[in-house]
């Protein structure tokens, strides 16, 4: 039973540019979620969305060495800890990203329910709204 999400994406940009976009708080806030973030192991980060009724995401940076970034991912109000891993590899004409989000099967019982509730609740709407917001930003800029 698959319980890990894996994404691969090639960006036509240098590895340092991509690394900066995923580790610099100002940049993360532009394309992802409003971030209080430092690429330092042990840093307790927060990702917030700009709209109300959205639970912030928080967690701890586990590893941040170019070009691998690992942090835990917890939806506020829940106990469930999942892990997000970003791996960057230089390829011809750009950078390949391997993104992994794991893993529900590590969590039994109560925490799994909370995880379930966290996405069953209002968070989905926040994400959609945020995507619209980002699109507006890109179109405007």
């Amino acid at each position, binding site marked *: 039973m698959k*319980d890990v999400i894996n994404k691969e994406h090639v*960006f036509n940009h240098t590895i340092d*540019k991509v690394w900066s976009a995923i580790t610099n708080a100002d940049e993360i806030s532009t394309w992802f979620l409003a971030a209080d973030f430092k690429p330092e192991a042990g840093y307790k980060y927060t990702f917030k969305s700009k709209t109300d009724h959205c639970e912030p995401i928080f967690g701890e940076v586990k590893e941040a060495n170019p070009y691998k970034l690992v942090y835990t991912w917890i939806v506020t109000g829940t106990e469930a800890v999942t892990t997000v891993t970003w791996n960057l590899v230089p390829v011809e004409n750009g950078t390949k990203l391997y993104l992994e989000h794991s893993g529900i099967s590590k969590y*039994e019982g109560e925490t799994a329910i909370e995880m379930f509730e966290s996405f069953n609740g209002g968070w989905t709407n926040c994400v959609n709204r945020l995507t619209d917001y980002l699109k507006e930003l890109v179109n405007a800029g």
Partner: protein
Amino acid sequence: MQDKITKLFKAIADPTRRDIFHALVIATSALSITQISNQFEMTRQGVTKHIKTLQEAGLVHIVAYGRERFCNADPKPLKEVDKWLKFYSQFWDSKLSALEDYLDSKEG
């Protein structure tokens, strides 16, 4: 409803149970406890315990036939887990697309 989800996550949290469930899914017919024990080199008691957990989650149905019990897989309850995966899968697709747009729009 909550109770159901607890049981489901409990059932899939264990790798051996996932393997047993997988074996039942790909089996062309119901498997007996004895067959599962042989296949996984486990005691009947151990298999029975795993099967019970899977049964409680609704992932396995058991039919008694004589002295033997036969197990059938039912993947329908896994839709709940699938929902989680689909949600985050879409989330990351949209985020990576936003990251690409951001990088493309950024100078340098």
